[in-house]
């Protein structure tokens, strides 16, 4: 479904990604792990079109998408939940969800999808009229996910959804992601929570210093010595 072919990204002189390749299959749940500054966000932003790649190509459902503007990429069903949530702080919960369903097709399904979201995240329903900026961190993250889901993603990409959240909230969010994948949604998860993300995902990629150093089934990665030593502290 998503094919990343040997892409490179550089900021000024610094090389953020070097010849990275990666694939995500239909129904897949891929975890992209690595330390801070390894290039995970750069990779996901390159897919969304927020970062320009200097080399290589990105294909989504067989079509080249590298070079397209972010809004066009979103309209193909490639939806990102950005790092730091990036909600519309002065707008209400409901308005945030409305913007999530901004594209023509999702807009038609707005009412139905809104109901689904409120079912999935009952707390958002309680706070529907409140401004997004006034929500707690966990609620904000849920809203960010719900906003992305309103766009009816074909592939959902999440950038550090657990950052700054209490462990119990993190667990809740990961549980929801698992369920979404079980229902058939393809997910690409970027996270520093190596253990948890490998536990819920099917496959994993380890990104270090801008290149993929390890890949395989999540279960295998969990057992890998390098992962254990560097990321799980075992």
């Amino acid at each position, binding site marked *: 479904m998503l094919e990343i072919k040997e892409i490179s990204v550089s900021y000024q002189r610094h090389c953020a990604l070097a010849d990275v390749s990666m694939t995500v299959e239909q129904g897949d749940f891929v975890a992209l792990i690595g330390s801070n500054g390894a290039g995970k966000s750069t990779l996901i932003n390159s897919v*969304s*079109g*927020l970062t320009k790649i200097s080399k290589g190509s990105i294909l989504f459902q067989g079509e080249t998408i590298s070079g397209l*503007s*972010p*809004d066009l990429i*979103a*309209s193909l069903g490639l*939806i*990102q939940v*950005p790092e730091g949530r*990036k*909600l*519309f*702080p*002065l*707008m209400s919960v409901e*308005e945030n969800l*409305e*913007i*999530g369903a*901004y*594209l023509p097709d999702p*807009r038609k399904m707005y009412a139905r999808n809104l109901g689904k979201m409120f079912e999935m995240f009952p707390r958002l329903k309680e706070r529907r009229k409140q401004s997004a900026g006034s929500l707690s961190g966990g609620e904000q993250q849920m809203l960010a996910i719900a*906003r*992305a889901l309103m*766009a009816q993603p074909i592939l959902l990409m999440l950038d550090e959804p657990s950052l700054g959240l209490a462990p119990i909230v993190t667990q809740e969010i990961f549980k929801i992601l698992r369920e979404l994948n079980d229902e058939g949604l393809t997910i690409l998860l970027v996270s520093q929570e190596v253990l948890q993300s490998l536990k819920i995902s099917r496959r994993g990629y380890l990104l270090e210093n801008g290149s993929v150093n390890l890949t395989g089934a999540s279960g295998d990665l969990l057992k890998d010595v390098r992962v254990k030593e560097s990321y799980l502290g075992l």
Partner: protein
Amino acid sequence: MNSTLIFQSLISGVMMGSVYALLGVGFSLTWGVMKVINVAHAAFGLLAAFFAYTVFHRYGIDPVVSLVLSVPFLFFLGCALYRFLLIRITSARAVIVSSMILTFGVAIILENLALLLWGADPRLFTTSYTSKVIIVGPFYFQYPPVIGFVMSVVGISSIYLFLKRTYVGKAVRAAWQQPEASQLCGINLGRISAITFGLAVASAGAGGVGMGLLYSFEPHSHNLWLIYLFLVVIVGGVGNVLGTAMAGLIIGVITGLSMAFLPYQWVNLLTFGLLMVILVVKPQGLFQSEV
């Protein structure tokens, strides 16, 4: 000092202030959301006033009715201006400064265009209702300010409702609160910017005709109007639509009260003194920036 005079001053002041607010709301919007200080804003308003003048004298069409033509025209002009001109500076490091320089050039072009087409003589809207009044008890409501007030209420509430109730309006707010995330939701930033700018320029048209109902105008008048724009926006909070309306009312009340209580020559001193106090005490304006 008698109560009739005080109340009459207040009414006049509030109506006047409301027209300033109508002229200022678009200026506030582009400044607040796009970080573009459009110093040609008042010049667009002036253009609409001149257009209304011509249409009135040629075809007898009421200045207010002329907005049916000029507002859409200005909207598209604004969109085009963004697409071909302003878009080039939105990536500049200091958008505010470069936008001021760029739009200053636009203002000069518009001013000279007005000079060329209409000449330097001052103009007035002299319609059948110009000196008509509604008399309520001891108070006089002159038609032109009342019409200006109604235009302002209609204009500002439409902009407010557009931003709060329509999908595109919400997209405008989203785009300026969180540009990156809005793109991830499928919002085309270039298109939204063009719409925002077009809307602001269009609202200037309504404001310009409103000013024409109150004051005489000539090709240089926009320089003066610009001062009121800054006043309204700084009091009302940059980018805050309802704040702009409130600022208009506040300025109106202050002007009205000082006209009734103080020697008249103090009125402008007081209004702009107030502006300075607000800038010092609450640099973000009396009302929070909100879009």
